């Protein structure tokens, strides 16, 4: 076992992350305008931007889902109990004692177990809630879909959509806050920009990468 700087976030992954971030911030900004939380921008503009941003994000998600499953990267999000308690204990206790983060990124698990579970829930619960309700809202309000028979009026659809949006806000708050909990904020953000991070590699992984994917290892 040794620590190496390798390209842990591929180019698509980084584009996905920042594209998704831009889209989500745009959607939150315009969405809460439409909801009536504030009135900084014009309602019609908010609807237009919200709709296009949603379509772009959906497109990005189609690519992301394809990418996750064709590259096998989806395995990073599988829930695991290993080290779960350790990590949870760190955030609740150890962090106040000045302990080091107990988790080391590995080649097969670039997320700590708490992170992996959170992302899994975001991907399988919150995001589907927002895009299914969003598409339903568009179709129902355009008169292309009638769910009133199923007792799913616009009000219910909008309720689900708004609750999911609030959940995303909560996720973002926690997500950004947790960037401050390591060695440095920049240290956490940088890998998602450059792609490179320090990862524990087994000797076999190192040998494999050296012979098959040498450009993943930072020279």
């Amino acid at each position: 076992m040794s620590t190496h700087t390798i390209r842990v976030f591929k180019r698509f992954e980084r584009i996905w992350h920042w594209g998704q971030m831009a889209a989500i911030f745009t959607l939150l900004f315009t969405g809460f305008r439409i909801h009536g939380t504030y009135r900084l921008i014009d309602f019609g503009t908010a609807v237009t931007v919200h709709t296009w941003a949603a379509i772009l994000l959906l497109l990005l998600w189609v690519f992301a889902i394809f990418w996750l499953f064709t590259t096998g990267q989806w395995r990073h999000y599988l829930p695991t109990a290993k080290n779960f308690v350790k990590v949870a204990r760190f955030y609740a206790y150890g962090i106040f004692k000045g302990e080091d983060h107990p988790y080391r990124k590995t080649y097969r698990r670039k997320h700590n177990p708490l992170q992996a579970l959170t992302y899994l829930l975001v991907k399988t619960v919150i995001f589907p809630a927002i895009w299914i309700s969003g598409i339903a809202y568009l179709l129902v309000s355009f008169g292309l879909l009638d769910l009133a028979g199923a007792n799913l009026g616009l009000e219910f659809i909008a309720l689900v959509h708004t609750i999911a949006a609030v959940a995303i806000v909560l996720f973002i708050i926690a997500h950004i806050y947790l960037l401050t909990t390591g060695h440095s904020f920049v240290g956490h953000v940088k890998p998602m920009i450059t792609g490179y991070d320090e990862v524990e590699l087994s000797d076999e992984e190192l040998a494999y990468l050296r012979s098959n994917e040498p450009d993943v290892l930072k020279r």
Partner: protein
Amino acid sequence: MASAYRRRRWSGIGSHAIAGLRHLTLVVLLSTGGAALAAAEDGVELGISEYKSTGQEHPQAPNKQRESTTDHRKLKELQGPFSSGPEVTRACLECHNTAGHQFMRNKHWTWSYQHPLTGQKLGKRVLVNNFCTNARGNEGMCAQCHAGYNMTGPDFDFGNQENIDCLVCHESTGSYYKTPTTKGNEACSIMFEGKPPIDWAAVAQSVKMPGRSNCGKCHFYGGGGDNVKHGDLSSALFDPSPAVDVHMSEASNGFTCITCHVGEGHDWAGSRYQMLVNDENHPKPGMPREVATCVSCHSDRPHPIDSVEGIKLNSHTRHVACETCHIPSIARGGVATMVDWDWRTMGKLKDGQGFKLKEYTQGDGHHRATYKSIKGDFKYAENIAPIYAWFDGTMNYTTIGIRFDPGKGPVEINSFGGSYGDPASRIYPFKRMHTTMPYDKGNNTLVYMQLWGESEGALWGNYDFAKAIAEGMANNGQPYSGEFGFVETYSYWPVNHMVAPKEQAMDCAECHAREGRLQHLGGFYMPGTGSNELLDRLGVIAVFGTLGGVLLHAIGRGVAARGRRGL
């Protein structure tokens, strides 16, 4: 100073000497147009209407006309001489030998309407409104706007074709006018005297399809003055700017009334009693339909679909009438509409004479009466937002015999149904009129009043509600308890005219907002209104709770780190 003010504001009724002066003014007005009007209003004014004639003194725009196949000036039948309206009508009917039969089925003639859905018997012959109240029994005055001659009372002969007034709708000289069919009390009749005689042959030869000025002469002046009744029908439409009415303006489309109110055989579309609010008919291209709806020309998906907003707006048409967004305000173009009438103050006299007080100055500079001895107190408004309600097109009326509970808030002279759940309903704009008016306190019904005439009960001249009601009820065979009181009433006037240019259509946020225009309409979801307060509150708690949580966590880390460094 004080006396000058009085001369301007207080105008007596009943002096013949001053009437002569007024006729002089009329000549000046006719020759100089509207500019002279403001000056004329500084003089003494008589009579019951705010404008003694309707139409002619306003700037008129030419009406686009379909080219006729007949030049009526050359017809020997129309060379005259004629000495009366019925003589002209007889000449018209010689060639147009089915026109009389057609017109005798028209509401403009019958003043009667049987509602096909409610079965209610409506029309001016029976209804009570909350302006001058009842035409019935007051035909001597009100039948100025009957498209016939000699309607002096309810016993009018509706079977006599020669009493049809072809000219009021078809003449195009602008010199034709109508006066009350009976003389009335001197307090009122004076304003109709001394008009120049009608050149019957000239007006007969001028006939064309009706223009704005023909319809407008009556319809712009409903309720006793310019735009008093509707709010969206005023003299501003004789020659409107595109901003006032994008369809009727000569600078844009130059529509006449009958461009939209289409029909055949003297029967045309667009009655307020039974309205078509959900025109979803998709005819074949170019197929004519006799409906006066926006959709009949624009389709129910009128917005361009090259933008999200366009698509989104098209989906609104299933719930929102075109008029709701495209008529952002009513009483535009400088002419105010009446919004409140209080009959209780009727009958104040000055030196034993009735008077007017003109303390409202509207956008075009005219002074509007805020008090008239014969009518009471008035309030006006201009450029006002209509009110909005779900509307299924069917109007119900509180007719003369219907009992109501005066303790239950304002009586609705007309009311209507409609809801979000009804696919045939639309959110529709209305002008609402509020009036405090007399009613039968014993029977809890509306009343017929004798307003016009020379009888002892005629309100206009005698200023006595008790007598006017007793006489009005007795003359028309209505039971009356003998005791009257005053009740608040509302009437609702669907808004369809004064469509603004598309750039001035209502912004989304007029409705999609807290305290938006549709705030009072519950029962359905509309984004932007903050309608789900519980959700908003929980959302705020969740977000600030999370922020607070991470803040506490961060503070904890800071404090612990200081502790470790031994500070």
